[in-house]
């Protein structure tokens, strides 16, 4: 028995070594599958209907995850450099409010209602505003040596209050129609064909990256993965992408929208109705683009290298000639800009800027980063981990809503999951080093 166990273990270890797959990544995917199956089966057996693993729910999940995921990528860099940002939820609300005021109160006056430049100006203003406030907080942290915890705790209160003042306590709606598309919804998607095209492009990129990586390693005489491992990784990666495309395309537009669309375009609806797919929604595309850009920044650029070096040993980074104060300011500014992007997504989805927008988001964002393997000790964290972490958090949240847990229980579960995740993370690190 024990011999057998040893044998299977070593096979697994060999497999992991050959594929160079991160065990943490596997763990997170495993947790995600458990959560998804758990909620689905719970619904199936207890409520008589498994609602989780349906195209509709998974599509919604992808949209809901986006704004947290966007911010979580920035929180990784913040936590890697041993800081924290508690202000992101309030800053999201404030940015959304500024954008609301911009596109509802100010721009229509000068440009006219529905002018095509309203949404781009609004988006740029919102993101720049986030970056500016982030930079301001960063200056206080880096140059005045006020701990990030305090500065951003202040920010949490200040920006929430400020958005209340700006909006005079009102909800600002409705947002510009084009702007609203950024939030998803039936029209805010790339449709079936677009999703297939995107999916195929992503598959090609995966193959290209694997191929290029192999060539680079060969060029410098480093060891390469065995061919079967390359094929397996490429195959599984592509299968996941194609699967995602099929799921997103399996969620049709609601009948009412189809009818309106058909009427507007003079299409006759046949007896069985028309099946118009959603496909990938804009928010998820934005989140993926941000994920790719942030991964690039974190792993392929000087900036990213400095972030991790500062996290590993701030004094050494400074002695190596890195301007750590400036870096800190830039990191918080980047966090602010990402919060601005998240604010675009969140307020576009709601088609309004409400006073409570983004409330408690900081907790979800921090939880996503930490569940994704970002360590509070500094120097360790990945962007993809944080995005998966955001998906885990949002899966828990929407799963509990779906099966009808009330919000008190939801909060308690999320809290427990966070603490347990960090505990497991500690165990994992102790065993791996």
């Amino acid at each position, binding site marked *: 028995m024990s011999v057998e166990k040893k044998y299977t273990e070593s096979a697994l270890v060999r497999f992991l070594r050959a594929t160079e797959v991160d065990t943490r990544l596997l763990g997170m995917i495993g947790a995600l599958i458990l959560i998804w199956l758990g909620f689905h089966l719970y619904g199936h057996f207890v409520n008589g209907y498994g609602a989780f693993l349906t195209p509709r729910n998974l599509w919604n999940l992808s949209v809901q995850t986006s704004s947290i995921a966007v911010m979580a990528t920035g929180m990784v860099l913040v936590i890697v450099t041993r800081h924290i940002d508690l202000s992101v939820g309030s800053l999201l609300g404030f940015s959304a409010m500024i954008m609301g005021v911009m596109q509802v109160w100010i721009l229509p006056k000068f440009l006219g209602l529905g002018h095509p430049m309203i949404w781009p100006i609004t988006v740029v203003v919102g993101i720049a505003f986030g970056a500016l406030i982030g930079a301001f907080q960063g200056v206080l942290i880096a140059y005045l040596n006020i701990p990030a915890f305090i500065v951003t705790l202040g920010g949490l209160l200040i920006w929430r209050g400020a958005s209340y003042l700006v909006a005079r306590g009102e909800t600002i709606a409705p947002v510009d129609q084009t702007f609203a598309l950024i939030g998803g919804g039936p029209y805010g998607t790339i449709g079936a064909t677009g999703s297939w095209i995107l999916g195929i492009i992503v598959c090609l990129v995966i193959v290209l990256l694997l191929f290029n990586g192999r060539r680079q390693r060969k060029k410098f005489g480093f060891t390469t993965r065995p061919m079967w491992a390359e094929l397996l990784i490429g195959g599984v990666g592509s299968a996941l992408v194609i699967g995602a495309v099929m799921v997103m395309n399996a969620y049709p537009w609601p009948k009412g929208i189809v009818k309106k669309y058909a009427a507007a375009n003079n299409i006759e609806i046949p007896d069985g109705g028309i099946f118009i797919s959603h496909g990938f929604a804009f928010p998820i595309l934005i989140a993926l683009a941000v994920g790719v850009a942030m991964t690039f920044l974190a792993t392929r650029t000087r900036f990213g*290298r400095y972030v991790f*070096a*500062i996290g590993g040993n701030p004094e*050494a980074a400074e002695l190596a000639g890195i301007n750590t104060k400036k870096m800190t300011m830039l990191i918080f500014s980047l966090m602010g800009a990402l919060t601005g992007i998240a604010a675009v997504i969140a307020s576009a989805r709601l088609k309004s800027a409400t006073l409570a927008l983004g409330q408690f988001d900081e907790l979800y964002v921090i939880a996503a980063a930490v569940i994704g393997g970002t360590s509070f000790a500094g120097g360790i964290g990945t962007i993809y981990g944080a995005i998966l972490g955001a998906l885990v958090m949002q899966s828990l949240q929407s799963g509990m809503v779906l099966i009808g847990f009330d919000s008190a229980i939801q909060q308690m579960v999320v809290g427990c999951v966070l603490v347990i995740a960090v505990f497991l993370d500690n165990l994992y690190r102790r065993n791996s080093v």
Partner: protein
Amino acid sequence: MNTQATEQQNTHAATPLVEMKDISISFGGVHAVDNASCDLYPGEVVGLLGHNGAGKSTLIKILSGAYTRDSGTIFVDGKKATIDNPRHAKDLGIETIYQTLALADNVDAAANLYLGREILTRWGTLDDAAMEAETRKVMNRLNPNFTRFKDPVKQLSGGQRQSVAIARAIHFNARILIMDEPTAALGPAETEQVGQLIHQLKNDGIGIFLISHDIHDVFDLADRVVVMKNGAVVGSAKTTDVTKDEVLGMIILGKCPAGATPGPGASTD
């Protein structure tokens, strides 16, 4: 031949590479360095000696830009130098191996070697492959047994980490090299290798501050010693003009022998 060259430079008062004059710094009332002066000529090895806590590391950290002095002046190539942060020092060709090594533990040897001076591809991204290839070359010369290029340096042994720190300091054409207890974690063979390295660098005309609390590490390698005690300079002497025992007396008692030039920290009795 080389010692002759050094001799010449010293006696004929060529401009020193570095001159630190009347440097003081205190930390909350502790005078870590008190009115200390010393200089360094091209191709010269100056041993900076003293007990633990004498102020050696603090003094050279002022030269390397890690600390900003409270008072005093630094001249590099005879010109007054502003060294307010490590970047300034590096721009002047001052490289440092810190006693703590100052490595980013979570990244690999190549990332540490090139930290702050990364090789970039023509698209402005990190060229990790090139940096690793270069690192393999440097480390091969310095410590041929070193093979763990992919591991974060926190997983390396003390000696391996020290090799990385040394490699980093010598790789970028330093003119002035500061080595703060560079062999503390090394075995005899590696220490010997560092000794050879110092000879070689000296021949290239690099000026070296070699810091140690142990006279045996320094005496045979150094052209001159500067001894510190309680933050002040006891005195300085050419190693040809004093014996090891006399230098020990300087370190322990603060007593300046006849062959040495006394400093403000020399005991007066």
